[in-house]
């Protein structure tokens, strides 16, 4: 991706960009905060459902962006790692079986099963990584594809954990007496389950975005991007290619596990067929449409691929296809994101986020010389996306506050 993005030679300031460092970013932050509050207060359950799934999808898209966007490793195996996270959550947090036919559940706390979902997926990633990462490019794509099929076989057969082909229920988050499957009082407000999930997901997505943003400005993150831009160059600079790829693989698996657990928890009941290749491909579509190697790109992409079709469906903007011939709205959605993939790859490889950035450049008054494609040779091997991603991203924070 670098050669397209390296065109803009924006000077990098010595100071790391601060969270809400500029007046403009503060304004944007306040406006979006108000928009979120208004949405929260007025939205009905159907809208909340759409947005909640989008927030979960954004976490998963972020996970894929770590591996594919920032580190340049093709992966079609995201749904496999989401499934690992989901089933870990189900086993640890699920209700104990009442008969010998029910899948296992240990009824542990939310604060155990959610992190455990990420950690289990990361461990599986660490286990699979050394094998998968021996190959790259198309080969890695095919190996991760194989992972999805092998995963489906395991999930269909491991009845004690997954419930087999019939599927199983997944736990809801519970904070003390505050259970997410019913209405609860908070500061005098009655919160519906949708609103509770909305708040929780917003917090988790925010943390994940901050974390990934920080990692990508750390030494490890720079190494990921160097590996993407030029493997030989990165190796010469002293980066251990295997370590960098493994790091990205494990971080990506961790986030995917979290997203999978949240997805299953919000859906409540999931069959193993859910974790198929189509799910993986939807996330790939999301990062391509939203923006490769960009945090806001992951979020926007999730909105485009997961929310837009449902919104179109909701308002029935499309003529409802004749249901008699077996055409579901899912097929129409698939057509939309299939076309979006092709159109964005052809005409805007930077995704929606590149359009946003460009429009921002147009409105800016003072600009450093901005020759399109002028200094390509000079900047071609820089981790270019990062040079200009971060200063414009509101979620970037000082490097000092780096969680890890």
């Amino acid at each position, binding site marked *: *991706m670098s*050669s397209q993005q390296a065109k803009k030679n924006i000077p990098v300031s010595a100071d790391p960009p601060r969270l809400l460092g500029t007046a403009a970013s503060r304004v944007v932050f306040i406006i979006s905060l108000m928009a979120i509050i208004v949405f929260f207060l007025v939205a009905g359950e159907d809208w909340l459902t759409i947005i909640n799934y989008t927030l979960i999808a954004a976490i998963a898209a972020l996970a894929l962006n770590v591996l*594919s966007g920032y580190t*340049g490793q*093709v992966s079609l195996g995201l749904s496999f790692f989401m499934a690992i996270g989901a089933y870990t959550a189900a086993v640890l947090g699920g209700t104990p079986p009442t008969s010998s036919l029910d899948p296992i559940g240990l009824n542990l706390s939310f604060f155990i099963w959610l992190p455990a979902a990420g950690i289990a997926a990361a461990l599986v990633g660490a286990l699979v990584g050394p*094998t998968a*990462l*021996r*190959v*790259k*490019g*198309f*080969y890695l*794509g*095919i*190996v991760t*594809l*194989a992972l999805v*099929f*092998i995963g489906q*076989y395991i999930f*269909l*057969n491991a009845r004690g954990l997954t419930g087999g082909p019939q599927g199983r229920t997944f736990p809801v988050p519970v904070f003390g007496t505050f259970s997410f499957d019913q209405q609860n009082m908070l500061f005098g407000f009655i919160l519906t389950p949708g609103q509770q999930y909305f708040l929780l997901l917003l917090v988790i997505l925010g943390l994940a975005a901050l974390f990934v943003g920080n990692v990508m400005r750390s030494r490890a993150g720079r190494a990921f991007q160097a590996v993407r831009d030029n493997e030989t160059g990165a190796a010469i600079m002293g980066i251990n*290619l*295997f370590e960098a*790829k493994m790091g990205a693989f494990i971080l990506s698996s961790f986030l995917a596990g979290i997203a999978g657990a949240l997805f299953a928890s919000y859906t409540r009941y999931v069959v193993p067929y859910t974790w198929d*290749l189509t799910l993986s*491909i939807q996330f*790939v*579509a999301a990062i*391509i449409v939203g923006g*490769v190697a960009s945090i806001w790109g992951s979020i926007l992409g999730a909105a485009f691929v997961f929310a837009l079709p449902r919104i179109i469906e909701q308002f029935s903007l499309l003529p409802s*296809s004749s249901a008699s*011939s*077996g*055409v*579901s709205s899912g*097929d*129409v959605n*698939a*057509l939309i*994101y*299939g*076309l979006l*993939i*092709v159109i964005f*790859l*052809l005409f805007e*490889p930077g995704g929606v986020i590149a359009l946003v950035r460009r429009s921002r450049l147009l409105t800016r008054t003072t600009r450093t010389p901005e020759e399109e494609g002028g200094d390509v040779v000079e900047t071609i091997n820089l981790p270019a996306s990062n040079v200009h991603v971060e200063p414009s991203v509101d979620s970037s924070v000082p490097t000092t506050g780096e969680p890890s």
Partner: protein
Amino acid sequence: MAYFFQLVFAGVAVGCIYALIGLGFAIIFKASEVINFAQGELLLVGAYIISAGVFEWHLGFFLSLLLGVIVTVAIGLLFERFILRRMIGRPVFSILMITIGLDIVLRTGVILRWGSDPVPPGTPFQITSGFNFGGVHFGANDVWTIIVTVVLCAALFYFFRFTKYGLAMRATALDQEAALVMGININTVYALAWGIAAAIATIGGVFLAAKSIAFDTTLGGTALLAFPAIILGGIDSVSGAVVGGIIIGLAEVITAGYESRFASILGTGVHEITPYLIMILVLLIRPYGIFGTRKVERV
């Protein structure tokens, strides 16, 4: 023992279909270093058009076959000319994804046109026809799959070895710039590769669809099993695609034939993943495959 030979025969027949699909992958990869994820959906489109030709438009099988080949070749050529050619020099990830984009568009296009209910396959054979020999049933469709695969391979061998354009394609695969300097029209070579791959995919689709009395859009997913085949054979090797296809077909069918005896340990559906397990093993030991050139890079 007859059961085993029956499985071997069925495995070779299935393997020939994987070989036909794999040939398409290998030819496109050799010419342009692109893996076409949409190969399976080209097959699907071909199978649906032939089915519609026979049962909807009453054209007869061979006219429908011709129509199916023409349409899929046209899709392949248009995609190569107007989409893929704009992607030259872009990262592997993008090229892979744009073929997946085509895959999705073709599949949903088929669903929007024909619905997702199963349709009968357009085939010149009765599903029950065939002959018995030594306790083994040789179904007509399977026998013809093997014969057509052998004939097509011979034709491709002749094409690559003895014709002008075959030579041009081999030269381009070897060294694109040198071929360009020698006056070879690379655009023609790319178009030829996509045209041949699409036509072979459609022929594979006829046999694949005719294995059961009805098929639906999951047929395209079967083509994914050609990936293990080409990785086993070597991704840039045409003969490797055939050998790999037959080995994978045998492995899948023989596992399917015996897995019920070990169901208590293995569970159900293990034959669906044996091809992928073999592929992962091959990638660990010999990532360039049996016949492939040793240029697959490792970390």
